[in-house]
């Protein structure tokens, strides 16, 4: 993986020193909160309902074991012994004290990490496919691209005060696990007719108040043009994006209001202008970065033991059925570690669990870990002969839940349990749904189903692209939950349709139960997923399940 050079190291250290000085000046009263707030946000420090929150970037979701160990150390030393993995592949600490934050940032810098640009109207942490470098369906590893973008966007002098935040996501595979069509810029690696790798450039996607599926701006962009082209897009947006209304400031609105053709014209013209003199792009630099993401040295071992263990141990077999994905190398698998134990908080890992995962990565996983936008942790390179040992290690750390992609593998934002912007809670709803379906012992029968919960309209919980989406709102001083149906965050991105009136906090879990049990009756056979059944039948029968009284009235 990418290791900081002297420049990166010095840059991050300088920023920690600057922030330490800013915190001192805030505490001694030299800086007012109004003056300090933009400075703390530039360094990922929010003030939430009960405490500060520090959001640490995990660039494109990639960590090594030393970094994961350091995250555990920070959780123990300065927080409450846990961390929350987010839908943007970041980690958030919910209880830091202001005085300690510079020390936390300094500890992060020790392992080449930081919290820069995890907030504010800047280019945020670049996200990528969490199976990058491992997935069987990959054209190329997207992480060198993401790292190049990280270097280009970090402290970019022109893009520190954009009209609004700006999110870029990259995938190198055919299956889109990076939700590229719901990003300000989505990059999909493709090959042209000549067989060269490049990007399909998608812009103007986004969730939030006005959800939109991204549109293709350029069908094929050669790899060497990546930086000048992205610079052209962001500079066009920087000038054209609206600053008069925060809710209309994202690039999706700029594209919508001006039309794709006009944006294309402006971007291509700006691109033509800056490309010849663009010094930021350097093929040598990219090739150096690519070398640092070289595939690990795979081992060759027999896998008979693995097959035998699967036959002998039903719990292990169940876990391998749900939590493994195909790897590009023979004898290898991608392991998804569920951070969604039934009834626990989605995405929360204790320091002990972080250390356990780091240790397994060191021993059996070529020292690599990933954070997924679905709030799970991935061991991307595991030889099948080591799976039984990994499973034992995960069980010992209470991390062996076999539910990846199932109904209890729920995305949930922190909601009003932590977030100052939230309008309702998300976490208890996720906990109750997972607990309920675990009691029913039905989740394996239900099969692949993505429930995503947001505690406000900003949609950090990606509810618009959940097969079942839940949006928590404040209706006249009471928590109320709206359901959307049929959303999809993959290469067939679809925004879910609102089902009807919302449900109170006591009614939302029973409503989900009616919906899901009803689906079991509606599906053609066990292979037809919830989403496939929804696409075949349309919303109507599902809405009838949610509102049985209304359906009965209509039938009368």
């Amino acid at each position, binding site marked *: 993986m990418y290791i900081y050079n002297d420049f990166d190291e010095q840059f991050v250290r300088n920023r920690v020193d600057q922030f330490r000085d800013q915190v001192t000046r805030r*505490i001694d009263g030299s800086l007012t*909160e109004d003056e300090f707030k933009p400075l703390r946000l530039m360094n990922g420090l929010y003030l939430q309902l009960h*405490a500060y929150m520090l959001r640490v970037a995990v660039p494109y979701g990639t960590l090594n074991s030393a970094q994961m160990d350091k995250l555990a150390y920070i959780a123990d030393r300065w927080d409450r012994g846990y961390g929350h993995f987010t839908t943007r592949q970041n980690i958030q600490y919910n209880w830091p004290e202001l005085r300690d934050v510079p020390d936390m940032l300094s500890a992060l810098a020790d392992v080449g990490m930081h919290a820069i640009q995890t907030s504010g109207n800047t280019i945020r942490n670049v996200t990528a496919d969490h199976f990058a470098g491992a997935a069987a369906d990959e054209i190329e590893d997207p992480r060198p691209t993401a790292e190049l973008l990280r270097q280009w966007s970090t402290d970019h002098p022109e893009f520190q005060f954009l009209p609004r935040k700006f999110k870029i996501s990259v995938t190198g595979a055919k299956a889109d696990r990076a939700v590229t069509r719901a990003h300000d810029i989505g990059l999909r690696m493709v090959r042209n007719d000549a067989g060269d790798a490049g990007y399909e450039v998608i812009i103007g996607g986004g969730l939030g108040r006005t959800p939109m599926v991204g549109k293709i701006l350029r069908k094929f962009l050669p790899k060497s043009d990546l930086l000048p082209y992205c610079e052209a897009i962001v500079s066009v947006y920087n000038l054209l994006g609206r600053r008069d209304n925060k809710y209309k400031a994202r690039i999706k609105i700029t594209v919508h209001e001006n039309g794709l053709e006009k944006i294309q014209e402006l971007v291509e013209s700006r691109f033509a202008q800056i490309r010849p003199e663009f010094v930021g792009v350097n093929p040598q630099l990219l090739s150096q970065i690519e070398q640092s993401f070289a595939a690990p040295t795979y081992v060759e071992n027999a896998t008979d033991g693995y097959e035998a263990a699967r036959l002998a141990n039903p719990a292990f077999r169940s876990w391998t059925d749900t939590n493994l994905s195909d790897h590009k190398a023979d004898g290898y698998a991608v392991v998804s570690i569920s951070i969604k134990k039934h009834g626990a908080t989605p995405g929360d890992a204790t320091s002990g669990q972080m250390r356990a995962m780091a240790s397994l990565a060191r021993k059996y996983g070529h020292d690599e870990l990933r954070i997924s936008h679905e709030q799970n942790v991935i061991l991307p390179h595991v030889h099948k002969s080591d799976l039984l040992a990994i499973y034992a290690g995960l069980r010992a750390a209470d991390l062996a839940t076999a539910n990846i992609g199932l109904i209890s593998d729920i995305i949930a934002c922190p909601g009003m349990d932590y977030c100052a912007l939230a309008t309702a809670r998300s976490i208890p709803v996720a906990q109750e749904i997972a607990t309920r379906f675990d009691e029913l012992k039905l989740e394996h029968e239900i099969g692949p189903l993505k429930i995503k919960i947001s505690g406000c309209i900003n949609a950090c919980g990606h509810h618009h692209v959940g097969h079942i989406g839940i949006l928590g709102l404040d209706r006249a001083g009471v928590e109320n939950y709206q359901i959307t149906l049929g959303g999809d965050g993959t290469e067939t991105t679809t925004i879910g349709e609102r089902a009807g009136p919302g449900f109170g906090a006591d009614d939302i879990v029973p409503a989900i139960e009616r919906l899901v049990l009803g689906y079991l009756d509606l599906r053609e056979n066990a292979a037809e997923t919830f989403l496939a059944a929804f696409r075949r039948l349309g919303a109507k029968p599902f809405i009838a399940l949610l509102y049985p009284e209304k359906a009965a009235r209509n039938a009368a």
Partner: protein
Amino acid sequence: MARALTSKVVTANALLEGDAIWFTQTNEWTRDIAQAELITDEAHGDIRLLEAMADQSVVAGVYLADAKAGPNGPEPVHFRETFRTRGPSNYAHGKQEA
């Protein structure tokens, strides 16, 4: 005459720890909403807000929140403010821990 309003309390987050605090009649900050000053007059509320905001070196994010009189002192009205008096629902962290 100043218009009567929904009663309020002045609240903020403590600068160092970040936890929820409320402004008392004696210009101090308390961790217990029941000790806060319940404000029933809009003009007085505006003045108290300004006075509280002058405490920049110990607090951040000062605002007026709806509150009602309870047997032991002011109580929150909205669920968001209720959560601020106790902490998150997934762990016994925050004020409920004490």
